[in-house]
């Protein structure tokens, strides 16, 4: 390793030699950097899982425009939308078709716990408004009292979910009605519920007797090929006389929901602070590791300064150490971080996972933080006379 670094750097790899001079101290420094990595990974993982969980329901459907009530800050919040606006929207030449989307929560009383399932009522004869997986399963949903369940629902054993098939359906009672599950789809527990369920709008109205077919929660629209959803939405805002409604492209609705969850909801704000605190604590740890190392070698650096080495030379050593600590600390950091996120995901069914973006940003951030910490720590060396540092 020393020879390799010597060849790469074109000089003695002082940073590597310093770090590895004391194996115990090197291990402690790596543990510090790895811990900082794990801290940030876990906080970022939680933050990202909230984004994934928020946007997950939007993946169930396929639409270009979404019309929602004015207070519908998220897909599951807010009032209803009169169906008349669906019909009105169809007057626009670029609107091809529309579907009312009903949303409610079904409580499934199980032997040991109650599952809260976010349930969507859709029109099963318009599969084009569903993802390809769900669209292929709409036939069974045309049966009254039939439904599909999220096989990753929290509290639903995997083997039991796997046994749910059209040939071996599973029935249970909901508000005095029998609901029969004929198949499953991939969802996953979120921060607001244990999982998802998909039923026809007719079944939905049976399960939620107080709801009316003329007032879905959202209206989904498909535009004609080549039409710009944002431009069509702008026209619809002029066309629809109820100015309290939110008429947005489907993509914009997802992003506004995400922004609301991250910046307005307490959980999002708490998670955001978690990431900030994680990064700050990580920075403090990394700074401590590097500045201690520079302080410990100040006498040697002063000697090099007395020999005519420039400040760039010392920065080079610090960057060398930063990269070494960043790389060698990252390996255990990502391993432990992945293990923790995987364990948390298994325990909560939240979409907690290590992503390439997280790994890359934490690695680059660690190396930059290490470099800046070391550079700050060498300022004393730059300012002082060598004789004062011996």
């Amino acid at each position, binding site marked *: 390793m020393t020879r390799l670094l010597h060849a790469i750097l074109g000089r003695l790899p*002082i940073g590597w030699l310093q770090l590895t001079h004391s194996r115990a101290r090197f291990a402690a420094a790596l543990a510090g950097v790895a811990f900082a990595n794990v801290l940030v990974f876990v906080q970022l993982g939680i933050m990202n899982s909230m984004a994934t969980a928020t946007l997950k329901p939007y993946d169930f459907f396929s639409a270009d425009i979404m019309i929602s009530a004015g207070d519908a800050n998220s897909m599951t919040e807010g009032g209803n939308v009169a169906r008349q606006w669906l019909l009105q929207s169809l007057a626009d030449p670029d609107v091809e078709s529309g579907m009312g989307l009903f949303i409610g929560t079904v409580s499934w009383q199980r032997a040991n716990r109650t599952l809260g399932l976010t349930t969507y009522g859709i029109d099963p004869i318009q599969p084009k408004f569903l993802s390809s997986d769900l669209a292929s399963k709409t036939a069974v949903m045309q049966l009254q009292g039939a439904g599909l369940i999220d096989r990753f629902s929290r509290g639903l054993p995997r083997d039991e979910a796997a046994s749910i098939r059209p040939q071996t359906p599973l029935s249970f009672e909901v508000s005095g009605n029998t609901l029969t599950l004929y198949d499953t789809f991939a969802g996953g527990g979120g921060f607001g519920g244990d999982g998802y369920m998909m039923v026809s709008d007719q079944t939905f109205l049976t399960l939620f007797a107080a709801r009316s077919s003329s007032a879905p929660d959202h209206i989904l629209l498909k535009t004609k090929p080549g039409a710009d959803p944002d431009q069509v939405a702008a026209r619809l805002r002029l066309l629809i006389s109820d100015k309290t409604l939110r008429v947005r492209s489907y993509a914009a609705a997802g992003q506004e929901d995400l922004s609301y969850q991250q910046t307005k909801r307490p959980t999002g704000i708490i998670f955001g602070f978690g990431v900030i605190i994680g990064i700050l604590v990580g920075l403090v740890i990394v700074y401590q590791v590097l500045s201690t190392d520079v302080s410990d070698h100040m006498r040697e650096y002063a000697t090099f300064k007395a020999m005519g080495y420039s400040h760039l030379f010392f920065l080079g050593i610090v960057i060398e150490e930063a990269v070494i600590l960043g790389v060698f600390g990252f390996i255990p950091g990502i391993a432990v971080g992945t293990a923790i996120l995987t364990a948390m995901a298994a325990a909560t069914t939240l979409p907690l996972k290590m992503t390439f973006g997280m790994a890359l940003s934490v690695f680059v951030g660690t190396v930059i933080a290490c470099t800046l910490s070391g550079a700050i720590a060498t300022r004393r060396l730059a300012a002082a006379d060598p004789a004062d540092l011996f």
Partner: protein
Amino acid sequence: MAGQNKYPIAARNLNHWFGQGEARKQALFDINLEVERGSLTVLVGPSGSGKTTLLTLLGCLRDVQNGSVQLLGHELNEASGATLMSLRRRLGFVFQAHNLHNSLTARQNVVMGLQVHGTLPAGQIDKAASHVLGLLGLGDRLDYLPANLWGGQKQRVAVARALIGNPDVIFADEPTAALDRESGGNVVALIKRLGHERGTTTVMVTHDSRILDQADRIVTLEDGRLVDKVR
């Protein structure tokens, strides 16, 4: 060339203080000194007389506060960082406490004395370092860390590091204090030889009477004042 001046080192009306405010204390008083090229000049005096302070001022390891120091034709008072850096590369310094890098082997420590010039490939620098260490009797200790060398060996590594860059001026603070009679004699002989053959100027702080005998000039300091210049 500046390095070929008759007096590569000249201090005029040099004063120096340590501390600030009421704790400010003057360490050197009105020092005037010229050191001839190729000579071995020894600074002597009781402990605390200002020998090391003067050595570090002449060797541009400390900022000149008051007065003038001319080193290799350059004024050190208010010299720029770049000037100081380029001058330091023309000097060799042997520190009283060796100041070897604990993470580097004897050879690597010596390599650092030549690598700063950036003119030779790594292989040649290694060979040169091994050669100089061999001259100082450390050919079998090339890959030893300082922690595994005894005091005299460390001192010889420090001497090798100072000499390998073929400096114009050598500053040495008690370079033979940890050496036995033979090793100390070899170091002084080497320094004297460099003076004669290459015109290397040496300023040394020492109490070693063996060196005093070989000095071209002995300068005595007392309480920060230059009281005697012999030869």
